[in-house]
């Protein structure tokens, strides 16, 4: 299902994406004609007021929320042209997720949580060793045996990041990864993302926090489900003010 249109320019491209949710009182427009290109090695911060469609944008990028109209291309693949199960395979191969609230599985140890994406991969080599390496990368060497409730919020965040990168995904998506953390810990997590980006990971992160956004290479600013006009002239201006 590879789309061979001439879209080799960007790693990821959203083209005229619109998303309307079916609410009780008719359709709720969450995104309205949004087009974005993300380059390999990018670090984009998605900002905007509450309800502006940031999470919607992220789940569409995350290949789990089919847009009402518009297309998404990754590596030339028309992502939403794939079947539901193929979408799952796509997520497995291309994407790493860091969820708000970390979303660690409570009955799995840190190492087992990190190994989750490897459970379904046809990867060779010791999965445990890969998990240990990922934990090392986020500064949690030797803590793989702990259950999530034996870890601090910041440590849980690190485990979540290790889980997102363990299978070396092309793009890492994060929805307010520091939302539940104090500013000190949040800063450490951001430094980690910066490090991942320096190591070559492409990152798209939703955040409310300007300091966090400062780590990003670019800011995607949303307002009422649109990219404001001003965005084109001076990127991020609307959100930074």
């Amino acid at each position, binding site marked *: 299902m590879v789309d061979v249109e001439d879209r080799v320019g960007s790693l990821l491209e959203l083209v005229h994406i619109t998303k309307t949710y079916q609410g009780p009182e008719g359709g709720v427009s969450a995104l309205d004609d949004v087009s974005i290109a993300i380059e390999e090695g990018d670090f984009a911060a998605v900002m905007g007021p509450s309800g502006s469609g940031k999470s919607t944008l992220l789940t569409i990028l995350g290949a789990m929320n089919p847009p009402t109209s518009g297309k998404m291309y990754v590596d030339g693949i028309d992502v939403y042209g794939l079947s539901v*199960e193929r979408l*799952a395979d796509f997520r497995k191969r291309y994407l790493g997720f860091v969820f708000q609230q970390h979303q660690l*599985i409570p009955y799995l140890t840190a190492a087992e949580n990190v190994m*989750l994406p490897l459970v379904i991969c046809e990867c060779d080599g010791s999965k445990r060793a890969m998990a240990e390496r990922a934990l090392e990368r986020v500064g949690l060497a030797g803590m793989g045996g702990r259950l999530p409730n034996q870890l601090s919020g910041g440590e849980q965040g690190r485990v979540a990041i290790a889980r997102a990168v363990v299978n070396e995904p092309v793009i890492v998506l994060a929805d307010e990864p520091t939302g539940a953390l104090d500013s000190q810990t949040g800063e450490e997590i951001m430094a980690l993302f910066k490090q991942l980006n320096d190591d070559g990971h492409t990152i798209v992160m939703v955040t409310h926090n300007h300091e966090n956004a400062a780590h990003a290479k670019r800011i995607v600013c949303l307002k009422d489900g649109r990219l404001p006009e001003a965005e084109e002239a001076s990127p991020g201006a609307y959100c930074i003010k």
Partner: protein
Amino acid sequence: MRILAIALNNLRRRKGRTLFQALGLLIGIAAVVTLVAVTTAMRADLEKKIDEFGSNLVIVPKANDLSLSYGGITLPNTAGAKYLREKDAALIRTIPDGESINVVAPKLLAPVEADARRLLMVGVLFPEELRAKKWWRLRGTKPTAPDQVIVGANAGSKLGVRPGSPIEVNGEKFQVAALLRPTGSSEDDLIFADLHRTQNLLGVPGKVSMIEVSAWCSSCPIERIVAQTAYVLPSAKVTAVKQAAAARKTTVDLVTKFSLGIAGAVLAVGALIVFTTMMASVSERTREIGVFRAIGFRKRHVMKIFFFEILLLSLLAGAAGFVVGTGGAQLLAPRLAGAAVSVRWDPLVAAGAIVLALVIGFGASWYPARRASQLDPVEALRSL
């Protein structure tokens, strides 16, 4: 790590919930195992009883003046008595189905005066008799000398004798070797003595009143044996005894049907518990499922997690249900069906219990697991 490990860790690290989930199924399986084991034991006991009572023949002289009763069989009055010859007993083994004949026990019945009371004395060949009467429990020793007798429970208390007591029968001296524990039959009122000693006492050497025959099995061709025996003993009347066993069979059949009904109801409740706990588990784990799906688990991977869990739970509940159920049956069976009933650890029942647990476990969690796999990851992750 594999998908099985996810399921295993969930069960392992949430022991309380696992136990609760398994318990519904376990109780259902245990109840069924108990009921099946008890009714099976009752059936086995019945088969044994049919062997003991049911397949017996009673051979009496073709006589008319009916008045004495023994073991539910009416016997010719001794007054107009005709006897069978003791030798006839040997003929019975010569019939074509002689293989199936287990015990041939000739008897001489004699109304006697024992310690000034009128009682019925039965002359028997003790070795044969004791082999035929497997349900006899003696208090005392087996008779070894011709003048030693076994006294039925009621007769014993009427006479006020105990093992070792001397008694006088028709003016001759005998000794009580043993008392018979109550059997609930007419045997309780009898005195059993040596056949030849009794013949001498009555002055009828070589004669017997009846011959009891016990065949080997519950399914022997009893009608055929009756016919063949009647053929070799033309002057005798041959009857098969079945009534007691038949009556009991009706009861056991009824109990079996009733048990099956109860077992069905208990299993339905067990299935319902599995279903509701699985449904609760799915909604409780919605976010988790969202994470799995987002990471790239396919629907069938998510189903696999739930199915592995139910597989492990069912195996656990099936095995434990078998142990608890059989243990329960061992406690219950003697109370429900008499001391003689015993319940074995039956590997077939174990296999049945596990298969049943699997069928019910999977049957009841099919829908919840499917629902889990069809959760939309975006929706699932929103329910924070």
